[in-house]
């Protein structure tokens, strides 16, 4: 973890997570979160982002919400987590209430499936581009390539759940990192 240049204020945390959530259709578009948190705001570096993302995915709860808790707590403890979560949820909650009202009380279903179909292609592009951005530094690191490829294969071809992938690949990856680069982060 490297300390960011500026520590965000509570309002900025809330507004930033509002921005992240309003742009994330289809649930869990973490590529957009990385863009804002790592590239624009520089609140986390790539490695901390990836570990926070992994924590958010493996623990129970919506990934985005867990990620908001992590970032909020990182800078302002409980209050920060609360500000980030409220920023994330408030406007989408009001939107979903409006849609619920239209759907249950007036039986109108907007052409949501069609819109979603169009957005999917962009969502795939976002996910793959985030993989390339966070992964390009591993291109000449055979061990990292091996673990990345195994994780991909276990998830896509063996259809293993996330928790199983981490339980199988996590311990050997940890041991290799422990033996080879115990304090590499400070040097890099």
């Amino acid at each position, binding site marked *: 973890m490297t300390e960011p240049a500026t520590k965000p204020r509570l309002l900025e945390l809330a507004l930033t997570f509002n921005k992240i*959530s309003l742009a994330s259709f289809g*649930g869990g578009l973490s590529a957009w979160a990385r863009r804002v948190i790592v590239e624009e705001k520089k609140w986390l570096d790539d490695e901390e982002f990836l570990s926070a993302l992994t924590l958010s995915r493996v623990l129970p709860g919506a990934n985005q919400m867990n990620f908001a808790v992590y970032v909020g707590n990182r800078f302002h403890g409980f209050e920060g987590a609360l500000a980030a979560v409220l920023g994330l949820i408030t406007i989408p909650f009001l939107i979903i209430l409006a849609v619920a009202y239209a759907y249950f009380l007036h039986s109108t279903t907007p052409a949501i499936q*069609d819109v979603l179909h169009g957005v999917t292609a962009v969502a795939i592009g976002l996910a793959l581009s985030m993989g390339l951005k966070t992964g390009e530094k591993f291109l000449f690191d055979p061990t990292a390539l091996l673990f990345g490829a195994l994780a991909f294969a276990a998830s896509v071809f063996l259809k293993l759940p996330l928790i199983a992938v981490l339980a199988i690949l996590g311990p050997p990856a940890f041991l290799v990192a422990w033996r080879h680069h115990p304090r590499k982060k400070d040097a890099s």
Partner: protein
Amino acid sequence: MKPGAILSLISFFSVLSILSIGGSNSVVPEMARHAEVEHWLTAGQFTNIFAISQATPGPSNLIVALIGFKVAGFWGALVAQLAMMLPAASLMLLVSRIWVASSGSPWHLALEHGLAPIAVGLIFASGWTIAEGASLSTISYVIAAACTLLFWKSHINPIPIIVVAGMLGWMRLI
């Protein structure tokens, strides 16, 4: 307000919150089953609200607010959503604190280093899985490939592109 309905929403979703390992979509089948048993929604309504929750902005667990709204109106939506959020968020807060407090320790660094490539592999897997499940047309694959290159190599804001793609989908052009 319907106190009985509110209580049953709280008791169901606060347990589901802790069970939703890997994200709230992992417990959607259980939500569907329970909603049918309790006569909260029909199967057809459930399919529709799942699509609504996927297509509206915000975290995936907002499907819970839709169920709560159907059961007990505004207060049902609010209470169900809070019940789904609070237990998982409390656990995440606790684990985040342990993780941040240990930063700089050798095991933390080794874990961060070791897990990073696995996380990257899983990010590629998520892109692949979305593509697999979506039954896309050739033009959509071309758009996906172009977006991958564009977002990788440039700092372009993806939101206008998402909006345009959504409109093209709405007009059934892609």
